[in-house]
């Protein structure tokens, strides 16, 4: 055992106070200037900011021209100073950017559609508000119909019953043509019934309401018999809402004047293609994702092949496919609208991408969930519909929002196949010699860029918010 080896003989001088690590000074020292490399990086960053932010603000705000009626307002010669953004150009072309060539007197319809869409969508996006199921049903089922009749116009000239009987008759004719004998001439009776119903409706003076009434009564009674009083009330409410819609849009009297899709344009087309794309691609995506995980070999192979095919080709070739090839595949007397063709292509394309996102969600559901459901005696369909899918879809909301952002951006490609979306309108506006000035191009890009950025960035923030909320249990 050694003795105490060391005893301090003198007072040790007090240490310096530690370097401040809080507040602005601490922040600057710790995060910006803590090493020679970092000082260098900070200096470079400041220079970079100086060379981007300053000219940008100068261009967009300080040197910008705010009033004027043609290009001469934005020429440096007239102003005698360097010219920044030419905002009168945007003002002059604003309605084109939003509506394209939609007739001026009918633009309130577009505004109304935007308004209704926003009013239905907003409560859907706020998690705290109740009634999500009804809200989602309204947005995904009712809103597209309303939007279609509002934007496109036109009315109803018959209701479900007429169409159904006609389809049955056509089917019977087909079967006969293929030489399959029918038990009796069922289609003849169907056609007779159809004619009789039509005549009754015409006699009453309002065939739409007549057929609507028959369908509503029939369906409601079936629902009452099969699903009980709750379902019955829901069905009646749906029919009542539909009736209100028909009356409001005067669909029984031919509806609003038709605006052909060829004259749609601008932000309208961008939003229509993107929204329809995501809504239509959801069922496609769910079906493909389930198909890919199916235990039935051919269904799995077909789904994998479908998904890999659409994911392996660029969207632009899909659009070429929809524009040039699709019409050749349809019967000669059958033409579909240019916008609709593009929508079909976009829905299939986005469906394949969504399928992979949804598959991720399905894979994240523990096997025990489905096993517990089958232990309770639920069938595969019920297990999927009630247990697995709702959980899986909740998991992948952020992923779906991402694919919606991607779709919104990709929508700009339709301008290559002669549809004038926002970007297409921008290019068209550049061609106007009345506004050609050195800064017109930059101004146009700045304006549309801001629109795209606000939409996409807003959505990406929203998906972060949802992700955060869904993972609330993971945070400590």
């Amino acid at each position, binding site marked *: 055992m050694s003795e105490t080896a060391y005893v301090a003989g003198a007072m040790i001088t007090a240490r310096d106070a530690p370097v401040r690590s809080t507040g602005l000074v601490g*922040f600057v020292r710790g*995060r*910006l200037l*803590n090493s020679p490399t*970092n000082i260098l*990086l*900070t200096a*470079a*960053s*400041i220079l*970079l*900011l100086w060379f981007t932010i300053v000219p940008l603000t100068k261009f967009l705000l300080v040197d910008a021209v705010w009033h004027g009626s043609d290009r001469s307002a934005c020429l440096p010669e007239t102003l005698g100073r360097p010219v920044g953004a030419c905002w009168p150009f945007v003002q002059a072309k604003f309605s084109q950017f939003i509506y394209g060539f939609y007739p001026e007197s009918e633009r309130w319809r577009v505004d109304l559609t935007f308004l209704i869409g926003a009013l239905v969508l907003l409560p859907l996006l706020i998690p705290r508000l109740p009634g999500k199921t009804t809200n989602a049903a309204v947005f995904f089922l009712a809103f597209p119909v309303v939007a279609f009749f509002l934007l496109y116009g036109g009315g109803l000239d018959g209701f479900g019953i007429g169409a159904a009987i006609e389809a049955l008759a056509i089917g019977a004719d087909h079967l006969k043509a293929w030489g399959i004998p029918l038990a009796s001439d069922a289609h003849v009776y169907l056609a007779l019934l159809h004619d009789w119903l039509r005549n009754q409706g015409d006699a009453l003076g309002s065939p739409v309401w007549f057929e609507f009434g028959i369908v509503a009564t029939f369906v409601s009674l079936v629902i009452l018999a099969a699903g009980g009083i709750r379902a019955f009330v829901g069905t009646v409410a749906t029919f009542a809402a539909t009736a209100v819609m028909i009356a409001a849009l005067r669909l029984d009297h031919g509806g609003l004047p038709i605006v052909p899709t060829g004259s749609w344009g601008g932000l309208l087309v961008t939003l229509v293609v993107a929204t329809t794309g995501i809504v239509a691609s959801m069922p496609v995506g769910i079906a493909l994702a389930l198909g890919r995980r*199916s*235990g*039935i*070999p*051919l*269904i*799995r192979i*077909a789904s994998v092949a479908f998904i*890999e*095919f659409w994911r*392996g*080709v*660029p*969207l*632009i*070739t899909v659009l*070429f*496919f929809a524009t*040039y*090839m699709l*019409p*050749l*595949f*349809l*019967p*000669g007397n059958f033409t579909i609208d240019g916008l609709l063709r593009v929508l079909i292509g976009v829905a299939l394309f986005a469906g394949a991408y969504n399928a992979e996102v949804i598959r991720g969600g399905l894979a994240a559901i523990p096997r025990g969930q489905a096993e517990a459901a089958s232990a309770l005696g639920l069938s*595969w369909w019920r297990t999927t519909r009630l247990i697995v899918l709702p959980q899986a879809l909740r998991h992948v909301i952020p992923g779906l929002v991402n694919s919606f*952002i991607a779709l*919104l*951006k*990709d*929508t*700009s*490609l339709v*301008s*290559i196949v002669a549809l004038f979306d926002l*970007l297409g309108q921008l*290019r068209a506006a*550049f061609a106007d010699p009345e506004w050609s000035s050195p800064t017109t*191009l930059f101004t146009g*890009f700045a304006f*549309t*860029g801001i629109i*795209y*950025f606000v939409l*996409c*960035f807003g959505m*990406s923030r929203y998906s972060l918010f949802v992700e955060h909320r869904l993972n609330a249990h993971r945070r400590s």
Partner: protein
Amino acid sequence: MTGEARRPPLMLRAKLRRALGGQAGWSGFALQVVLVVALAWIGHEIIDNARDNLATQKIASGFGFLWSTAGFGVSQTLIPYSESDTYLRVLLVGLTNTLAVSIVGIIFATIIGFMVGLGRLSSNWLLSRIAGAYVELIRNLPLLFQILFWYLAVLAALPQPRQSINLFDSVFLSNRGFGMPKPIGTEALAPFAIAIGIALLLVVALRAISQRVLFATGRQIVIWPMVLAALIGLPVLTVFIFGKPWTLDYPVLRGFNFSGGMRMVPEFAALAIALSTYSAAFIAEIVRAGVQSVHKGQPEAGASLGLSRGDVLRLIVVPQAMRVILPPLTNQYLNLTKNSSLAVAIGYPDLVSVFAGTTLSQTGQAIEIVAITMAIYLAISLITSALMSVYGWRMSRSMGT
């Protein structure tokens, strides 16, 4: 007795059920039959309609058109091409142009992407914020928008050829594109190339030897001087022996444009810039996620073993990060290649532009042309993803997981 009774009596039927219908059994079998019938019917309808429609529009079908004369010029070709060449040649020209812009885009996207991604991880607050802003800005604007911006707004604002920005009178930047000297190989090129090949082989061998020695004995052999000597020394030696491997053909301003040299059309520049900056934003996020996925304890463990910071990065962090980075990175490369099809919007003569665009409008053979175009992109995608799954399989084997 009991054993026989216990044997499942429906063994054969169950097997059949399984074989025909998968896990879902007979209902699965029924679904498969329905699927096959539906697909066959759709296929039949499509072929039938297409045949009728083509007959009424008097369009010939088949691939014979590939051998007829194209008769239009292409602004940039990497392989010899003239107007009297066939549509097949046009297809090849388009494909090489697509691959060229994709490769250039991939190289720059990787460089910018890694820089931005590491910048985002930097401890420097300002730098990480700037990198973050770059990512957010670029990712939230459509690619076509960015391509048009570079093409219509930025490159068109470059000076005329006469006032072009030039470097040492050999590299010219103007609104007619990017001109630079074109190397023309002499007979000394072959030995030069062989020398580079030998040097590369040497480097690979040296690396393998040093690694084996390191793992066997723990001794580190310093190889970089030898590597440098091989990579620089050998080629330089051939230059001394055989003379210059190439001469340069400089671009010269004649009239309103440059002649001679190598010229990149502005469309190429716009497309390459837009593709690489756009993909870089996505690659940056991939890199960030990859580096963050390496557990903090890993570099700490490396440091406690006495490895230097560089060695920790090279031997511990990067290999593990790469495992996470590579699959999505390949996806980005694929996306970039597919996105290069947007060239059609600005008229860069890529596959879609010259083949699915000009050739389609000249011949009207939509089915064949769109099918070929899709098949080429599909083949590129499938080959790449097959290579990636082989890589992933090897990786998971070597990591023992």
